[in-house]
């Protein structure tokens, strides 16, 4: 059976990204009373999501 060669690498990369995003969102939600901390979490989410939605897979896996 022919497997997509970089499928496992992509899976590992995206799983790490998803875990980082969940940690960042949860951090922001638990710091909602601290506007500065919540905003920092949002900035981090914005940055990570922008990278993923740009979809430059070859850059991620190089």
């Amino acid at each position, binding site marked *: 059976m022919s497997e*997509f060669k*970089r499928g496992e690498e*992509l899976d590992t990369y*995206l799983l790490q990204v*998803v875990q980082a*995003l969940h940690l960042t969102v949860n951090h922001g939600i638990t710091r909602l009373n601290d506007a500065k901390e919540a905003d920092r979490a*949002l900035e981090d989410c914005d940055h990570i999501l922008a990278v993923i939605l740009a979809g430059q897979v070859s850059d991620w896996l190089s």
Partner: protein
Amino acid sequence: MFKDKVEAKDFEKMDPEYQDLVRKVLTIQSDCEIGGPHLYVESMLPTAPTRLDQLIVARTATEEIDHFRKFARIAGDIGLDVSFLLSMPNQKRYVETFRGAIQTWEDFAVFGCLIDRIGRYQLEEFIGCSYRPIEPLLADIIQEELGHIDYGETQTRELAARGGESKEKVQQAINRWYIKALDMFGHSDSRNSERYVYWGLKRRSNKQAREAYIKEVNPLIESMGLRVPDPLQGRHYL
């Protein structure tokens, strides 16, 4: 009617039609998962009404990316590379619903209420599916989609309950997304739809699934004091 269960290792032994349908369904499902974040992250992450709403937008996108990852993984196991979907322009998405952009909070709310609900329908079609690698993914993904639907429904209801301009904006969003939602089920007389059922990849025809959806959402829309749009106006797939 095909009743067996097919493992990834046996995929290439299957009838070419079965292989084509599995490849197609994995590609379209992956496209739908990643298509959502492409519609709303850029516009809604900075503009959602509160910080909590902004973080929920981020969490929703995160979960959809994870759903994409899971389907991309099982696609990769049969040699199907769907990574191009990550960077595909919205205008080229397989499903018309994902070809635009969400610009208002009302649209984001209604998208969750109506379109993520279609996501749930699509996923529920795979319960008991003949292609075995799909089944283990379903419980967690459906659970997360239920969270998106609940959030969208709550937001939609609250925005409608404010009345006046807010309610009118929600109605306009319902008018836009309801028609797209009905089209997402595809043609009622689709040959592919019949073949998916024949091969045990889906449980219901397009027509049956759409009818069930209408039965569920029409009373929901009315319960919010909103009007159900004409189900035929502006439709592409009847």
